[in-house]
């Protein structure tokens, strides 16, 4: 009997701790939301044009006090850039999280699997050879090409995997092979490009929020808001997939179907983001990783935490890109790479130790 009461006590205590932990996870998600919002506000309040904060606020709420130039800067430059930063961070980070689960590899991300490289090749074809899809204005030619190539690369990885019945490791290797292939083809484009076109392509590859405008923001926002509910709806199955293929199958999950739809979501998220802002590396790697440290791998929490971490990092990278060299806008892709590479290496070393 005495034993029993003791057990009951510890059980209550453990259940309490469990519920407290769940509460903490919600708090972390809310905190990430607030932090992203603060970062976003900071992001719109600074910039090379060094407006005063009061001017920015006046322009934002359109009091009529701000002059027209200020309104244009705030509404057509700072705001779309800052919103784009949040959206790109969300899209790439969620895509990275989904990829890490379906490939069972914490080093997987749209960047490491060749989606960005494919997008660059598509962009290169438009910039250097003028090859693009009809019915799209010049303005959209580069983005459209990048999107189609990025999307196709994910489908190609899928198809190769299906054709060979390949396992997860093979899929990762296919991705690496794709990176090399696209890079080689792009080198060929560099070789035949005119100096002007080459410069343009190099800039595209750096990844920059300066390409953002309201139309692009709307499209990415639409795609992200459509996809997030689908990701969330699959969160139990995705969590179960962490136990491995066999266990997931034994739970009645059609793992092929689950992977296919996840890949589809990844394709849309990463291809759109990369098409609009160019190569932004490591967000899809670092975002999910930070989220995993904060809330663990229960995908109900991990997915939202990943996309919010991505948004926060990207927004902070946008701020950093403005203040590192005052008066200049460094391409944000350079900033994310400089922050991301150490994290990437740390992950590899940590993995190697085990």
């Amino acid at each position, binding site marked *: 009997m005495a034993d029993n009461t003791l*057990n009951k006590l*510890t*059980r209550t205590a*453990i*259940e309490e*701790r*469990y519920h407290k*932990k769940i509460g903490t996870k919600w708090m972390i998600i809310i905190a990430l939301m607030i932090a992203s919002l603060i970062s976003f506000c900071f992001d719109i309040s600074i910039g090379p044009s060094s407006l005063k904060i009061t001017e920015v606020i006046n322009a934002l709420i359109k009091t009529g006090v701000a002059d027209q130039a200020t309104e244009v800067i705030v509404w057509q430059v700072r705001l779309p850039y800052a919103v784009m930063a949040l959206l790109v961070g969300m899209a790439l980070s969620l895509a990275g999280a989904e990829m890490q689960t379906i490939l*069972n590899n*914490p080093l997987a991300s749209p960047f490491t699997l060749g989606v960005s490289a494919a997008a660059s090749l598509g962009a290169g074809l438009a910039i250097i050879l003028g090859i693009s899809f009809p019915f799209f204005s010049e303005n959209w030619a580069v983005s459209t090409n990048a999107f189609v190539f990025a999307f196709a690369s994910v489908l190609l990885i899928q198809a190769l995997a299906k054709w060979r*019945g390949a396992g997860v490791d093979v899929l990762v290797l296919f991705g690496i092979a794709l990176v090399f292939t696209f890079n080689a083809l792009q080198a060929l484009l560099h070789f035949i490009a005119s100096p002007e076109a080459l410069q343009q392509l190099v800039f595209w590859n750096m990844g920059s929020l300066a390409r953002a405008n309201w139309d692009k923001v709307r499209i990415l926002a639409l795609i992200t808001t459509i996809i997030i509910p689908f990701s969330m709806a699959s969160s*139990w*199955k995705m*969590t*179960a997939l*962490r*136990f*491995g293929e*066999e*266990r997931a*199958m*034994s*739970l*009645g*999950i*059609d793992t092929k179907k689950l992977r296919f739809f996840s890949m589809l979501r990844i394709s849309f998220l990463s291809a759109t983001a990369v098409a609009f802002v160019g190569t932004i590396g490591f967000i899809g790697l670092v975002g999910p990783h930070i989220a*995993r440290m904060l809330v*663990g*791998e*229960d995908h109900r929490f991990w997915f939202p935490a990943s996309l919010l971490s991505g948004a926060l990092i990207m927004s902070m990278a946008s701020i950093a890109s403005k203040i590192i060299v005052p008066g200049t806008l460094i391409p944000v892709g350079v900033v994310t790479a400089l922050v991301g590479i150490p994290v990437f290496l740390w992950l590899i070393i940590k993995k190697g130790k*085990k």
Partner: protein
Amino acid sequence: MMNAVLEIKNLSAGYPHKKIFKDFNIEGIPNGSIVALVGPNAAGKSTLLKSVASLLKVEGEIHYKQLNILKESKINRSKIVGYMPQHQRDEIELTVIESLITVLKVNALDHNSSLPEIEKRGFDLLEEIGLLDIALEPLKNLSGGQKQMASLAQAIIRKPQILLLDEPTSALDLHHQVAVMKYLKNYAAKGNIIIMVLHDLNLAARWSDFLVVLSKGKIYNYGKAADVLTPQMLNDVYHVKGRVEKCSNHFLQVMVDA
């Protein structure tokens, strides 16, 4: 057999480029029994288990009560058959309780079971099998034995009528081996069938109702321990010279001479 409920007929299975076994038959397995699959390495034990769980491309029939479970939908099958793989992944950040909740919540058995209800069932099971103190530990931090216990819990919590276990006790100490086997005996007695791969013949003799001896993808023998565990079998299947003796508690004991 009169009350036979599980029957495996003409089962052929394997991997895309390699058939592991062909036309496999096991006569009626009655409800409430524990079947041990024994045999040397690469005899096809795990493959047979995966086939019954339909994790591989399988031909043939597996009848359970009135159903051919191979013809059932994935979700329906997952309500009848539970499976515990031999190996667990190492790097899972999920806690033990989270893993149980996930297993219950995915393709939930009854859709109206709420999350608090499911959480309660998770804690209930952990209390029952003595894992309450590691409920909030991430799976990746557990010891080998704890991992195996957690994996077993994941297979049991859906209360499958057919429970398939691939070496459920290989990483457990003596105390936990006995505890797990007692629990399983009790679980089977409630009218369920357990089929498990075991390497330890003495464990199989002590706890199972039937033994299936597999050798090179074929059934060497099938039946009660006393009929199956023979010096002849040890010689034919394992290529060792040994004796089978009855202990004072009436259970058989395999001893290897050379």
